[in-house]
């Protein structure tokens, strides 16, 4: 369970999230939905420990992400960024194996055929899938995905959603940020709107 208690987050001098409380159940898919600039990615970054709230607390289980070393935190939560940018020519397999085993997750996300391709030669959707696969390969109890469906075709969307469902069934707490134009959220166990 992820618990946010009266959280206020300021970014670049602007209050993005104010006095916000929420509970995200374990072993389920929770979707944070909202328009551009509503603070959904900021909230995800705060859960990931990237940002410290100026007020309130965020806890994963009984751990506050901002208080523990990065190596320990990486065993608890994994995160895939929305706009991952790869500048060096590592292969897809090499990148995913920086996090853990690659085979299973590459099969699940249709990346096996791209295993030896350089990430700098991939399309936007493929890059996003590599970032998602890397986060999943970390095999953490909490998985945070920032707009994982944004650049995907229908086939890939289906695969990603099915994989999230499978992970949630196996006990992973999946938190996903999606844009408000995402219409069907039937795959979500909980939807958080209007931050």
């Amino acid at each position, binding site marked *: 369970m992820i618990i946010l208690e009266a959280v206020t987050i300021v970014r670049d001098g602007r209050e993005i999230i104010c006095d916000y409380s929420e509970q995200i159940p374990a072993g389920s898919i929770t979707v944070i939905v909202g328009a551009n600039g509503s603070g959904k990615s900021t909230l995800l970054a705060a859960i990931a420990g*990237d940002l410290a709230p100026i007020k309130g607390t965020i806890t994963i289980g009984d751990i506050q992400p901002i208080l523990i070393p990065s190596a320990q935190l990486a065993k608890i939560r994994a995160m895939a960024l929305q706009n991952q940018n790869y500048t060096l*020519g590592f292969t897809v397999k090499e990148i995913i194996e920086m996090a853990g085993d690659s085979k299973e997750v590459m099969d699940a996300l249709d990346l096996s055929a791209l295993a030896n391709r350089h990430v*700098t030669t991939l399309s936007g959707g493929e890059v996003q899938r590599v*970032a998602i696969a890397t986060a999943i390969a970390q095999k953490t109890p909490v998985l945070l995905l920032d707009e994982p469906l944004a650049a995907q075709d229908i086939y890939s969307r289906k695969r990603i959603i099915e994989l999230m469902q499978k992970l949630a069934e196996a006990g992973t707490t999946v938190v996903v940020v999606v844009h408000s134009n995402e219409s069907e959220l039937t795959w979500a166990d909980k939807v958080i709107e209007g931050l």
Partner: protein
Amino acid sequence: MGIAVSAIFTATVGLLSAVVTRADARSISFWNFGSLALITRENLVGISATAVVGAVIAWKISPSLDRLSLGDSTAFHLGVNVARTRLIALVALSLLAGGAVSTVGSIAFIGLAAPHIARFIYGPSHRNLIIHTAIIGALLVVVADTLARSIAQPNELPIGLITSLLGAPVLIALVTVKNNIWKTR
């Protein structure tokens, strides 16, 4: 930032050259151009120590450097302590570059060309890069020194001149041919 720091140190060297004795000024100027002519056995012991310690540290933090190349945020998500890794990398870098420069002076382009050539041939993995950069860098220095000693006999040309003449075109060629060598193997 790098340009500014470089300007400050260049100015400091210029100031020192102006206030020291003529003999010292000559050795500063000699050091500025770089040379392998005055290396002693003691120098070799010193540079071996800094090279080995620096290389071992670099080797140890290579997996973190690989992750760091994915961006600070992603590296952090993968468990890398970004600030500490940068600091350790700076220590390794200082030992490797400082040890070499204090022994043979500043020889232009080796530090720039060798890792780029290694990355171009062997890919971006830092463990690979450390070994191959060392070999390629050593080869470049030996070839350049041999040319510097033999081209204009009996005079010896500054080795920095040769490495610039060799290294700069190689770098330009790599950048031009492959558009962006950071992105390719």
